């Protein structure tokens, strides 16, 4: 009988010892586990330092998207109403987050580095329509000291169809 009791004590001692093991649980809503530096979360449409949008409405992100999650409709810029330094801008830019698989191909395809994936991952919706993020929700806020878009710019300043990007690393084949 003592042999069986000994086995019981031996077994329960393992249970007892586990009470002093370090805790591994992340108390999620209060305490967030830091993501990896290259983590791909929801997108952000970036701006230049002068407040103009980087997106030139070329739809290359929509073409690269394997899930058809991105919809872009381009429109022409004018000097009175200028959104981006290029010839065109994205009048409609929508990402359906229930389609997006966060592969980052849009980020790779973008010629102006307008669309980037951030580390935000808290995306859950009670309605499917809420999952479609429009341009207003995707655009980052206007940097301090800059004007919001559309801007009125002087004629002859932005003439290139594709904007020059001084802060852009040179592409070498």
């Amino acid at each position, binding site marked *: 009988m003592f042999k069986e009791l000994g086995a019981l004590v031996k077994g329960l001692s393992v249970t007892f010892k586990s009470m002093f093991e370090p805790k*591994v649980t992340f108390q999620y809503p209060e305490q967030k586990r830091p993501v990896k530096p290259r983590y791909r979360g929801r997108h952000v449409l970036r701006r230049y330092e002068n407040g103009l949008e980087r997106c030139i409405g070329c739809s290359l992100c929509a073409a690269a998207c394997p899930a058809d999650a991105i919809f872009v409709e381009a429109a022409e810029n004018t000097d009175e109403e200028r959104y981006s330094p290029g010839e065109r801008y994205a009048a409609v830019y929508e990402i359906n987050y*229930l389609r997006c698989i966060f592969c980052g191909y849009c980020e790779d395809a973008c010629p102006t580095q307008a669309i980037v994936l951030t580390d935000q991952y808290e995306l859950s919706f009670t309605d499917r329509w809420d999952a479609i993020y429009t341009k207003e929700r995707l655009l980052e806020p206007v940097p301090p000291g800059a004007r919001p878009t559309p801007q009125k710019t002087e004629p002859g300043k932005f003439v290139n169809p594709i904007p020059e990007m001084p802060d852009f690393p040179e592409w070498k084949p």
Partner: protein
Amino acid sequence: MGVETKLGNMGIVTTTLEEAVNWARTRAMWPLLFGLACCAIEMMATAASHYDLARFGMELMRPSPRQADLMIVAGRVTRKMAPVLRRLYDQMAEPKWVIAMGDCASCGGVFNNYAVLQGVDEVVPVDVYVAGCPPRPEQLIHGILTLHAKVRASHPLRQQG
């Protein structure tokens, strides 16, 4: 339940009772195991020690629909699986909720073809959609918390029926 339809407007009594009912419902929402694809791996990770669904009173992943309150559809639902899913949903006892976890369960995701159901809401009513392919455990917990908020805002005693 429709307590008010039988007893009339009782004001603070039903409001307080509703709060208590909603509190109880959010504190022990047993999920039905419905892992169909890669999202199921993340669902298992959510229940494991790092994220620990037991903190929300959900440690019991019920394989039986009769004892489940919440169906977490994790993964792509094929057309052949859809009647099974609907049947399991019908077998669950009221009140019941559905979370469509991941892109495939929400709207088909990348599998835009004839074999995969384009969103599980074609066959069952979905309460919360969780984006991600697959969603990380935090995202699923965020979806569960969104559902908790939805349940807390509901009025179970005032609905007709």
